[in-house]
């Protein structure tokens, strides 16, 4: 039996004037999973999150969090890191963190204590009484992270979480997400970083023109949209074959997309028989980046 979804979106439609941004979108997010909401720019990912959190009023459809429309008074266990982010820059770090802790339902003293503990963890304890605008960009990102994960949320919604983060803070954020995954939190990620999707996500939804283009586990989507791949480094000339299509071939590295009934072992034999020196050979599913490019390649080219 499927567990009761933490998030349910049912036949959601959003229009702005004559423009339909989301058209009849349906999906759910299950407890404890990490869900990736993917799509090219303008595909409606952020609009969906904003409608789910009550910032936008949906034109039609039902968007529920834990079985009811989102309400700050009820859903204190949900935390959101928006794509456009910032904090009260003229206030001190501890004041801002404590304020958000209180807004998330913690008593003032507890919010303050949690904040100081977090600042210790990220080496910012000495800056607790410093105004935010006096901190470096990287330090402000750490404070933003603290605000996002304070009060140990059950549900984390992260819109482009690593956007603009330096490598140190990106590593910190991914560690924090993994900590929350291990603690059983449900995570929804909107991202363009496909390696993060492969590393963290259980299931994904790929939005295209306001509709669900692909929806399922990462493996299901990879199988359906990318198929099986062979990645190899070699010397010689790759022969043509009905068993594969050459997707990439440069500097003695190639990616071959296998046709539906082809066998990787048979292909390897064909290559060796054709006199190709194979230095490395890896058979597997298409990466999420390849899947993304296949679905949005034309869109990406248009944007470029």
């Amino acid at each position, binding site marked *: 039996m499927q567990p009761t979804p933490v998030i349910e979106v049912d036949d959601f439609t*959003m*229009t*702005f*004037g004559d423009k339909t941004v989301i058209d009849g979108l349906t999906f759910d997010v299950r407890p404890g999973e990490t869900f990736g909401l993917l799509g090219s720019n303008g595909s409606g990912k952020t609009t969906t999150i*904003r409608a789910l*959190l*009550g*910032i*936008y*009023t*949906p*034109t*039609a*459809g*039902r*968007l529920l969090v834990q079985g*009811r*429309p*989102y*309400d*700050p*008074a*009820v859903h204190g266990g*949900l*935390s*959101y*890191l*928006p794509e*456009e*982010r*910032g*904090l*009260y*820059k003229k*206030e001190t770090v501890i*004041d801002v963190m404590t*304020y*958000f802790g*209180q*807004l*998330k339902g913690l008593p003032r003293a507890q919010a303050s204590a949690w904040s100081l503990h977090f600042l210790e963890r990220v080496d910012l304890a000495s800056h607790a009484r410093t105004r935010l605008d006096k901190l470096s960009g990287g330090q402000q990102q750490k404070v933003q992270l603290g*605000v996002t994960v304070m009060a140990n949320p059950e549900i984390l919604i992260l819109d482009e979480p690593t956007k603009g983060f330096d490598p140190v803070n990106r590593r910190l954020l991914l560690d924090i997400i993994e900590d929350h995954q291990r603690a059983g939190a449900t995570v929804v990620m909107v991202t363009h970083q496909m390696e993060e999707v492969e590393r963290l996500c259980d299931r994904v939804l790929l939005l295209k023109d306001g509709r669900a283009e692909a929806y399922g586990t990462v493996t299901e989507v990879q199988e359906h949209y990318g198929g099986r791949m062979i990645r190899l480094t070699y010397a010689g000339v790759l022969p043509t074959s009905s068993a594969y299509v050459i997707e990439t071939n440069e500097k003695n590295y190639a990616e071959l997309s296998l046709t539906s009934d082809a066998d990787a072992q048979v292909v390897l034999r064909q290559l060796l028989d054709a006199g190709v020196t194979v230095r490395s050979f890896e058979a597997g599913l298409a990466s999420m980046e390849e899947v993304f490019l296949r679905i949005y390649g034309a869109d990406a080219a248009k944007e470029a």
Partner: protein
Amino acid sequence: MADTTRRPGAWHNLGTVIAFEVRRTLKRRSFWAMTLAVPALMLAISALVIFSNGSAMKSVDASQRQQVPFTYTDASGLIDPTIAAKSGGTPTSDADAARAAVVAGKADLFIAYPADPTKQTIEVAGRDKGIAQPTDYAGIARSVLLASAKEKVSDAKLAGVLTGTPRVHELTYADGRVAPGVASVILPGAFLVLFYLAIIMLGNQMLNITVEEKENRVTEMILTTIQPTTLILGKLLALVAVGLVQTLVLIGPMLVLPGLIMTLLGANLPSSADLPPDALPSMADLASAINPPAIAVGALLFLGAFLMFTGLLVSIGAIMPTAKDAGSAFGTIVIALFLPFYAMGILMADPHGVASQVLTFFPLTSPVTAMVRNATGTLYPWETAVTLVLIYGFAALFLALGVRLFRTGSISYNAKLDIRKVFSSRRC
């Protein structure tokens, strides 16, 4: 079908917002610098004025005590030589020589009393002693004449009437009752002053209610923890609390310190006995000036105007991308609000004319116009009712619009909000 269930917990986190907003404002040095600057400046100016007045009064007293020797001619025969002599006067028969002595700087003062001082002008020629040493030569001429005239009147009462100020108690009547007069304007008019102070002191902060979240890009995080209506209400209530603190800081020193300064400077406040008898209203006059309906209407107009103006500024803040952009719109609104002050003459002279009616019923000019007319007793009951409905209606409209614009506009971070976009996002 869209979910239209009413959300619970409408005031969730209201107290947290108020506490945060009040605390951070009161912790700000710039707030105290600005708040204390006004009373400090006023006290400094008051001290300077009191000190200057004290010095000037001492100087005048000294100059008055120092007798100015003068010569005079008396064609009227009214001047008593003894009284003139006591004031430093010496009679002369050669007016030209006496005048020439003053012109040459050899004498201080020459006075020529004409044959009929009631119809002809008294000629006074005096030596100029500069602005720093003011002289009252005309006063000397007048006081010698009055004192001499008084000596010639045998009836003491008549002499008193001639030289004193008769006490007068004036009563006017309207609708068979004693009319309260100018004093009746004070209490209803106080709401106008209060409104003016509120706009001056809190206007920019009202504008920042929505601009700040937008400029700091904190809106989305905030709106997932609190309803926009609650956030705006919390910020508004915090603003009122801060305004009360500012008012106390402004009024407190003004009540206490002038007396202290006077004491320290050795100056004396004028007592009521020194003032003309009808300069101050009696307690009975003050009691009759209390007009509860006018005060109640004044209070309602003030509250409605405050809410309307706040709603308008919240809406502007939600539309504009930065505080700087919003500031220019704020200036225009303030000019419109206080436009009736420029038309005060019309409001007084023709309170029921077309211009007054337009100003009374145009939403932006309505609050101030209605408050002025209410204070001066020229606002008819039906006009009061229409104005109140108008002001409260627009207040509700602007506040609702402000919340709606804030919800959508505050995440339109980089550009002015497209209002059509806000209203085209619709429910089924």
